[in-house]
């Protein structure tokens, strides 16, 4: 009886969470006639797959896609490299001021983005980076506090004896990081990579502030342009929304096991 109530609740709530996705997808494949029909068409009579191509060709989405990919790939690589290096430094060494620095690192998570937004804009402006993709890529090479914290928790669960054995065999600290810890950290790295990918892929404010030229736009900016340019191009908005959702969904699906295990692991061991 209790189980029945539990699952009924879960199913009802799931419907609430899924309905918007369903509606978006159906809107993307409907014909214009069915779009404005009342009562609304829940299951289109014909599927207009060509809506996707039509929406894609209304703006230079090919350019947007390549910009998005450049940002996401380069910044994810930088984030994985820098955050894991820093996490290793904090987890495996004892040095003067370490604990104070680590607290400082955690404290930076509490600074609202707004405080840094304006000076960062001016800083990038002075460097001549405005209207380039650099402001969206370069900071990822300087480690993110949240990811450092997460990776450090993970490294702490790896037995110290492994490091000591490697050191006996003549490995230096970088070897230990590169050849032992990186492979062992793989689940946590997948987690960090996925989170960062999603943040970078979905980022709207960064591109909005740092980019002016349409040829530099990312997909999120392109999608938001539909609202200003055309009156309300519902089908195109829906089609691009579906396309924009696909990579994060695919990534989440693939990385799900790591994400759950990693998240559970880091909390248990934290």
């Amino acid at each position, binding site marked *: 009886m209790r189980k029945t109530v539990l*699952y009924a*609740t*879960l199913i009802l709530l*799931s419907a609430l*969470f*899924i*309905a*918007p996705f369903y*509606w*978006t997808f159906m809107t993307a494949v409907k014909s214009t006639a069915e779009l*404005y029909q*009342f*009562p*609304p068409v829940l299951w289109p009579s014909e599927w207009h797959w060509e809506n996707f191509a039509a929406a894609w060709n209304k703006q230079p989405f090919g350019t947007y896609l390549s910009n998005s990919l450049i940002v996401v790939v380069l910044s994810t690589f930088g984030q994985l490299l820098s955050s894991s*290096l*820093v996490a*290793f*430094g904090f987890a*495996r*060494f*004892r*040095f003067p001021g*370490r604990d104070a620095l680590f607290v*400082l*690192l955690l404290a930076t998570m*509490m*600074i*609202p983005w*707004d*405080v*840094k*937004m*304006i*000076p*960062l*804009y001016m*800083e990038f402006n002075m460097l001549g980076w405005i209207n380039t993709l650099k402001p969206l890529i370069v*900071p990822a*090479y*300087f*480690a993110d506090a949240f990811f450092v914290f997460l990776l450090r928790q993970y490294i*702490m669960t790896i037995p*110290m004896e492994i490091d000591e054995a490697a050191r006996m065999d003549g490995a230096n*600290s970088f070897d230990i990081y590169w050849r032992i810890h990186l492979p062992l950290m793989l689940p946590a790295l997948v987690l960090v990579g996925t989170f960062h990918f999603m943040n970078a892929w*979905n980022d709207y*404010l960064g591109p909005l502030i740092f980019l002016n030229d349409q040829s530099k736009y990312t997909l*999120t900016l392109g*999608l*938001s342009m539909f*609202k200003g340019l055309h009156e309300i191009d519902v089908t195109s908005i*829906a089609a691009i*929304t579906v396309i*924009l*959702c696909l990579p*994060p*969904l695919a990534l989440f699906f693939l990385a799900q096991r790591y994400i*759950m295990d990693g*998240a*559970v692991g880091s*909390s248990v061991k934290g």
Partner: protein
Amino acid sequence: MDMAAHAEPKVDVVRRRRANVGRHLAPFLFISPWILGFLFFTLGPLCFSLTMSFFDWPVVGERTFVGLDNYRSMFMEDPQFRESLWITVKFAAIYVPFNIVMSLLLALLLHHATFASGFFRTVFYLPSVISGVALVTIWSWIYSREYGLLNFMLSLVGIDGPNWLGDPSLALVAIIVASLWGLGGTMLILLTGLKAIPKELYEAATVSGVPGWAQMLFITLPMLGPMLIFTFITSIISAFQQLTIALLLTKGGPLGSTYFFAMYIYDNAFKYFDMGYAAAGSWVMFAIVLTLSLVVMRWSAAWVYYEGEVRPADGDRDA
């Protein structure tokens, strides 16, 4: 590890000293990306922004030192400051408790689900995966007056749906609901917290005849304390930084009813190009968020149980 140096030949001492320098330098090399990033992307901008807040600082043209004038006119003369702050406070006051309570309820449901839990977990987490512009566009026509999903549902039960995003008394509610749709992240954190609570505690309590509600009150909530505090603080931070959803969904309207404090800062900086004034606004936000976070932490210290307190400090390791 260190042997008595005086017993060793000279060459070894030199080599050892050199190795020592390397050993002392190594940790700093590893953490150098963060140190550089902190200087260039955090500390530098913070100092810069604090300085700017004392200046009349247009993007182009003369900068004049005005002392505390930006802050004074913000508090005394700018009605938009008070209005946007009030809207943000209202938003946070509703969003934060709902976000935590609903995430906790979902997490508890999922924790007890034995069948298809992976499926349900994924479903509730999905909206967080696609947060951002896509999420907002989905909501923009759920709320649409004529062909929106929500008003269609209402029409099924004979209610003539309102103009959600066009009605000043409803737009803020609409934004809160849209924001809450992304509670999957918070839910996931709480779920991992629930899974980490030792089962023996519940078994012992059940054997002793402690009823379910008391187990919830005296085992689950205290054990979940650190996680709840973490989500509490991060929810406050994200509530105050709320910008993307409002910017895309309502642009602050109608009649300024969703003009958040972050949008006020954004407009001052990038619309009116008054960087000094915007910087002052961002420091007011920082002060509020920091104060709230400290209050939460201080207040929680009384009742939260940290497992770490009874363990030896994990810093006692050496390379």
